């Protein structure tokens, strides 16, 4: 995978609501023709989607970044979440029943 393709994937992984093509111009000076070719190549690989001029990672793209990226441990302790606290993300307004045995008296 080319360097610019990796940069796009990583930046999208770290974005919350996707990024516009112009963002990649402002960050990396990618010309319009280049960004279009990069988007095409990543769409062909089904790694990204584009809706209303916003680029987002597909599920496959997200998994690709997770498996291919070596994450460096940050020096900031608040960025390193202990493994015990990592679980499946609850969807908005989903029902949540606490486990009473974990709640102290």
């Amino acid at each position: 995978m080319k360097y610019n393709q990796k940069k796009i994937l990583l930046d999208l992984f770290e974005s919350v609501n996707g990024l516009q093509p112009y963002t990649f111009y402002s960050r990396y000076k990618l010309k319009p023709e280049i960004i279009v070719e990069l988007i095409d190549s990543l769409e062909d690989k089904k790694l990204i989607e584009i809706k209303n001029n916003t680029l987002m990672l597909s599920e496959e793209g997200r998994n690709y970044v997770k498996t291919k990226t070596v994450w460096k441990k940050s020096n900031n302790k608040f960025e390193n979440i202990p493994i015990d606290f990592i679980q499946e993300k609850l969807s908005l307004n989903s029902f949540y029943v606490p486990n009473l045995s974990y709640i102290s008296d």
Partner: protein
Amino acid sequence: MKNYKRDDYNQLVSLYFKQRWLVNKKDELYNLIDISKTHTCTELVHSLLERFNYIDNNYYQFLLEEIAEYLEDNIDDFSKTQIVALAYDANTDSSQKILYDLSNTLAFKKIKGFESINQFGKAVSYYKKGYTNLVFIDEFIGSGRTLKGRNDWITKNLELENQPHYIFLAGLKSTITSLNELNIFCPLQMNKGITEYYEEDDLSNNLQNMLNLESHLCPVINDKNLEDYSFGYGKAEALYSLEGCRGNTPNNVFPIFWWPKDNENRDRLKLLTRRENGF
């Protein structure tokens, strides 16, 4: 290095997504956009290009198959049929390209027995040999002038048993509708780029914008006057080219896209190439 504002950048990216062929013509595109900026008519150029029908090989094959299906549905006996290019003389013509490629498409569909004739005038002798189902073919119908002339000639020179079929790969919807007394089939029909798209103030502004753009073109090249091609030959305002499959661009297309020289008689960086004798 060119610096882009957000809106300009996004507009270009959006245009490239709609018209991928422009990615390989970025220098020519930027040249045209720079010219349009001197007259604040960049929006017009973007609008015309977004609606441009640049035919690639896949779409061309689709259109040929539409024509083949029309013939399957409307011709009862191919052994009495001649498919004739509307080419008038011995010069190469795009009607012959369409005829040749259509013949191959028909062969794939196992349709055979018809004669394929590469010059309009030869239809008479083949008619007299028994090929009485006449199918005339051409690439593009603009003003309809050529078609009317050919139809008048053929009806004067032959006592026709059936009305001929006139087939065009692409053409102007308004012209086809106005010639409803003729049997015309055209799978790709389009509106005029400005007068059948804009209304009221937008229409008058964009007509003037196009005249401003054309002021950058050389008014006379050899004996070809830009005036005769202004807004496309016959004022067709066509947005179409077969360049994507090694075809020519009709002179019905706005000359801003293909006119070879600028108003200082220098060769232009033009988006499309039109081959025409005399240029």
